[in-house]
């Protein structure tokens, strides 16, 4: 969003409403029982959509230079690298021995 771009009021309010709806949705979904990993996936999916809405409209990435979006995405990439590789260790350690009782 450059200096000369005035934020559109309707979009802002629309974004807030959408965020509300999604929050209610995510709580509602919590009370529905999905098979195991699905629950987490749905909850995180909704959270990601919400975050994307905030970034695009409230934070103005939708109007901004694409480079700022790239900056943001790079942080996610490096977060994913960190957790991804650490899981390569933590999920694949040998089952501990039980020699000391």
């Amino acid at each position, binding site marked *: 969003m450059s200096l000369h771009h005035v934020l559109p009021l309707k979009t802002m309010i629309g974004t807030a409403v959408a965020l509300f709806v999604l929050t209610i949705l995510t709580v509602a979904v919590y009370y529905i029982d999905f098979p195991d990993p699905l629950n987490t996936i749905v909850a995180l999916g909704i959270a990601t959509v919400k975050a994307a809405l905030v970034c695009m409209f409230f934070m103005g990435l939708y109007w901004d230079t694409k480079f700022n979006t790239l900056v943001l995405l790079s942080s996610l990439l490096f977060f994913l690298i960190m957790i991804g590789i650490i899981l390569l260790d933590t999920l694949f350690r040998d089952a*501990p*021995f039980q*020699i*000391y009782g």
Partner: protein
Amino acid sequence: MFERFAEFFLPPQRSTVAAEVDGLFHFIHISGFILFIGIVATIVYFAIKYRRKSEDEITPVISHNTRLEIAWSVIPTIMILIVFSWGFRGFLNVNTAPSDAFEINVTGVSWFWEFEYPDDGIMLTDELVVPVNQPIKLNMRSEDVIHSFFVPDFRIKKDVLPGRNTTTWFEATEVGESIMFCAEYCGTEHSAMDATIRVVSEEEYEEFLEEEAVDIEDMPLAELGELTFQQQGCQSCHSVDGTDMVGPSMQGLYQSERELDDGSTVTADEDYLRRSIVDPRAEVTAGYPNNMPTFYGDRLSDREIDALVTYIKELQ
């Protein structure tokens, strides 16, 4: 010639995995050295040949050369792939114990090592005796902080963690003594936390087993105390001849006046000795760190504690 050189660089190869590790070690050194000499020679040659002769020399514009650049991206790539797969193979060897390996439990404690032979009821401190040509698997654990089990002659190393087990293994190929170091920094006496690994022949090993498997029940208290004192690693912090180590010497301790770090004094009677072993952090002698392990209480039987106290009492 090369062998002399290799011997200068590396400790003797005394385990089955050593040769392969050394092979890779030499391979990287030699190819790295060739590369290095090439680079240095080129720099020196250019620096002499193209040294500045006058202030207004004009240099040619050579901005790139695709073929050269591809060459020096591809050749190193091939090199590193070789190095990687070679190292990978060696790593699998170092990490995968044969299924017929004889198992020994290792405990790292600040700052000594305990080796337990679970089938024979033997406990050794700072010394490990193993038969030659027999794969040995070590199940390792730490009582406090991270230590690391490192035997240069065997080319093995593995961290020893609290609350978790790690393993390593080796098969010694010749009879002799090798030194074992603690390779993960663990505090004051980290550099003194070493042990001797005695590789013995099959027969000697049998003898050793018989000798060690003494009957603890029938031993006189003082003798048992001395044995326990050594086996539990007390001697890595306490001398019995008056020298000051991490902890106070045990000589002349009994019945002496002890000044504690809160300023009070106590007489080192039997009861005090017992308390000092079972709950060492409760009364800390002035001038010493408060780092005597607290777990002895759970690990020693009552008889062993009695024995220790008797033993210490006799050290006058």
